[in-house]
């Protein structure tokens, strides 16, 4: 070292301790309080409003204790409830095994073309739940293409079950994919060294490790089905279900109290499964140790062929349904004139919202994606990486878990009740884009936040301590280090929020005004008005927009990873 080298160089470097500290207090405490306020207004108050509305016996609203007793004891309610339960249980019983096989094929076998199958399986996420229903009408309806294959027409129980099965398949698949992605190769080596065959290995290693996910998937499919009215409204026919009844009570008959009561009933299965799932999770704990070795499947001809057949069958079904929807949107006049045209895309000539709805949807989805990911990620950061304000952290954590247990239909009803309250200064928001964005963010909050939390937990827990010791304010550290490292996760959250906002109908159906009508709502309205071709066309537009933006963001994420490869590649494993 040079002899004139001295540590204190040109005096002490000037410091801005007090300003940094003040800024951090605003960033941390202010940020958390703001988040608490947002969550209270967007999640807690609407939920409370449901209970308030359900139990207040105002005239003509159909609420209150008396009405509740009448509702619960009425034969009509029993019929609706029975239908809902039958449909939901059937869908879950069909979807979960299929999704398990599909996920197993993708994670534990060596079938070719995994990326294609995976992409195709996600198709139902990209479109509103009405789309499978519309496609089924074209396939098996009274004038359906394959009408001859079945004895009765599709409207009714089986139509709903099929449509919901397609709609919920990717949701179940994603849970099972992530459960099956974790496997410790050492366990399988140990099993085979003790002479266990594949069946025994499955029973003793794979199944115990995934049965909790199977339960979670079952609950999710059940809840999604019982609260969805997109499919029943299209292919239900005379077969009525509870979700549709709630929708009709509020939108058709302005019976808010009755809607709230049914909303509360629909909240029960979600709350129940949420509780049991949380309990199971605690029971199971962490099954993967840090030293686990990644499982790599070995080739096996018979196994791979069987699974490929299953995967092909499922993908073919999905392709048939979605292809049918796209095709029917291009057909001039089903079934009499099968020549192709873009007539159904001339939305301006038909009722239901048209291009305005599409533009609104894109705006809403963009706002949801950008604002939502910023708020959710920053909130997750503050909760994960700052330790002071323990009570506040706990409150935020609990509040942000609530939306997971609340179906969109129920949340939407809550918004109607809360923001319509006479004297609520927030009433001005009713029917505006702001409220639609807020509701959509709140609805999809939990999943997005879990993605953010997972990404944040992979960062070195000492980063913040290091930044503080260097007298750097936390907000600067967040912007300079945390956000760049987590950018792929952030893009993932954006994609999820965008697609969800494009396709959602459950909550938005109660909140739009003629100026803020959304594309998915337009699908529902056009189908209601008998314009099934227009509904198919709008669904197709939503599908392609969602898929296009997803691909774009995936591409951006890949480019980003390539550009930052210099530091990501060699970065010490977190």
């Amino acid at each position, binding site marked *: 070292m040079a002899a004139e080298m001295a*540590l204190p160089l040109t005096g002490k470097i000037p410091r801005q301790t007090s300003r*940094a*500290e003040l800024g951090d207090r605003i960033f941390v405490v202010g940020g958390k309080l703001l988040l608490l306020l947002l969550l209270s207004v967007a999640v807690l108050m609407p939920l409370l409003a449901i209970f308030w509305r359900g139990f207040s016996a105002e005239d003509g609203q159909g609420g209150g204790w008396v009405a509740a007793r009448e509702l619960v004891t009425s034969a009509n309610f029993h019929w609706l409830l029975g239908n809902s339960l039958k449909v939901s249980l059937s869908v879950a019983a069909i979807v979960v095994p299929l999704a398990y096989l599909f996920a197993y094929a993708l994670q534990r076998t060596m079938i070719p073309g995994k990326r294609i199958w995976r992409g195709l399986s996600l198709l139902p996420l990209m479109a509103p739940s009405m789309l499978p229903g519309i496609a089924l009408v074209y396939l098996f309806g009274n004038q359906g293409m394959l009408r001859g294959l079945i004895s009765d027409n599709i409207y009714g129980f089986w139509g709903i079950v099929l449509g919901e099965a397609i709609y919920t398949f990717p949701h179940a698949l994603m849970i099972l994919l992530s459960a099956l992605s974790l496997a410790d190769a050492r366990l399988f080596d140990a099993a085979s060294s003790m002479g266990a065959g594949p069946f025994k290995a499955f029973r003793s290693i794979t199944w115990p490790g995934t049965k909790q996910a199977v339960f979670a998937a079952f609950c999710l499919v059940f809840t999604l089905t019982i609260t969805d009215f997109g499919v029943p409204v299209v292919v239900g026919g005379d077969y009525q279900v509870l979700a549709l009844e709630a929708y009709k009570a509020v939108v058709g008959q302005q019976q808010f109290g009755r809607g709230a009561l049914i909303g509360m009933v629909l909240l029960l299965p979600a709350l129940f499964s949420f509780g049991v799932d949380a309990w199971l999770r605690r029971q199971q704990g962490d099954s993967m140790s840090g030293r686990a070795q990644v499982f790599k499947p070995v080739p096996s001809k018979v196994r791979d062929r069987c699974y490929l057949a299953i995967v092909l069958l499922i993908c073919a079904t999905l392709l048939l349904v979605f292809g049918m929807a796209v095709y029917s949107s291009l057909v001039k006049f089903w079934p009499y004139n099968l020549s192709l045209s873009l007539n159904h895309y001339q939305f301006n000539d038909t009722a239901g919202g048209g291009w305005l709805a599409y533009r609104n949807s894109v705006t809403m989805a963009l706002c949801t994606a950008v604002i939502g990911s910023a708020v959710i990620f920053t909130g997750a950061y503050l909760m994960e990486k700052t330790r002071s304000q323990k009570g506040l952290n706990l409150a935020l954590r609990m509040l942000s878990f609530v939306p997971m247990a609340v179906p969109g239909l129920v949340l939407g009803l809550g918004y109607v009740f809360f923001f319509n309250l006479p004297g609520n200064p927030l009433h001005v928001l009713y029917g505006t884009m702001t409220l639609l964005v807020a509701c959509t963010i709140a609805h999809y909050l939990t999943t997005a936040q879990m993605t953010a939390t997972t990404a944040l937990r992979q960062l*070195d827990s000492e980063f913040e301590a*290091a930044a*503080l*010791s*260097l007298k750097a304010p936390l907000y600067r550290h967040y912007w300079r280090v945390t956000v760049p*490292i987590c950018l792929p996760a952030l893009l993932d959250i954006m994609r999820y929020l965008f697609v969800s906002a494009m396709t959602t109908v459950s909550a938005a159906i109660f909140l739009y005004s003629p100026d803020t009508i959304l594309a998915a709502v337009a699908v529902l309205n056009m189908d209601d008005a008998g314009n099934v071709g227009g509904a198919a066309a709008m669904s197709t537009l939503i599908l392609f927009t969602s898929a296009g933006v997803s691909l774009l963001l995936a591409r951006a994420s890949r480019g980003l990873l390539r550009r930052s490869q210099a*530091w990501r590649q060699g970065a010490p494993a977190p």
Partner: protein
Amino acid sequence: MNSSNATAMTQPGVPMKVRNVSKRFGAFTALDNVSLDVAAGELVCLLGPSGCGKTTLLRCIAGLERQDNGALYLGDRDVSELAPQARDYGILFQSYALFPNLTVEANIAYGLAGSNRDVVRKRVGDMLELVGLTGSEKKFPGQLSGGQQQRVALARALAPSPSLLLLDEPMSALDARVREHLCTELRQLQRSLGITTLMVTHNQDEAMLMADRIAVMNNGKVEQYATPQEIYDKPATPFVAEFVGQGNWLPFLRNSATHAQVGGMNMRLADDAGRAASGRLFCRPEAISVNPLLHQENLFPARVREITFLGNRCRMSFELNHLPGHALTAEVGSQDLPRLGTPDIVVALPPASLQVFA
């Protein structure tokens, strides 16, 4: 790291004082009324098993945990209630916590915000020179070896000229071969800068190698605070004796001012040995001579049970004939092995090496 000539321009460090600091986590007492004085420019190691409170103490000093009671002073400033940013220390974490998306240069400059650009560039260059990594400015942490990453983290911690340097298990992420080398280098650099340093470690070799003084901690308390030599030669408590180095324990009953009864033996004790009427005697393995050539005090017959070869020396497990069933160890040079011959030996336990614990 290059610091051969740095002694001439040391910056006088500041003393640090810990006064009666306590910290509880629920029912667990992590720190129990701990006090510690670190002199200016001194390197003190907090040594102890995991869960002894050493890391909690470091984090309290850093302001990353808040103590329940007690006070912390850095120089003449009371920093007990200050935010981490206001305390003026640099810290080197076990994981280094280098920001992976920033270059080496940007990492080191991280704590220099607000200064003019040329000053920062000069400072970064000087720091890299100090840790011997000139030319790595544009690299990312992931492109460096573990040892190099440690140096960058050290340069980053030192760049804002803090008054105190905190080291949290700095060597544990390195493999054993580079560890000793880096320990020596880090020690030289610290000495040449004269910066007051507190290091947490569970590795007694590191502590012995680097520290001016060692505070051995157990159950949230400082058991002994002394120089490495004192800690080894005169452990203040049975825990310190047990935790630092190897040792033998012999139960005894005092039968006179100068002698103790151990099993069927009468052992002479040093004049300055404690006055306890009964308890345990402690003796380092290397203090025991096996088949001594010269006449010594406290000679007793014994029988070899097992000999473990350790390269330049051997560890011998034996039993005193008058204290059967009680295994003791001694260390002998490998060249002395052939001299042992039969399993029946004579061992000498010099009075000066027998320490009395009640």
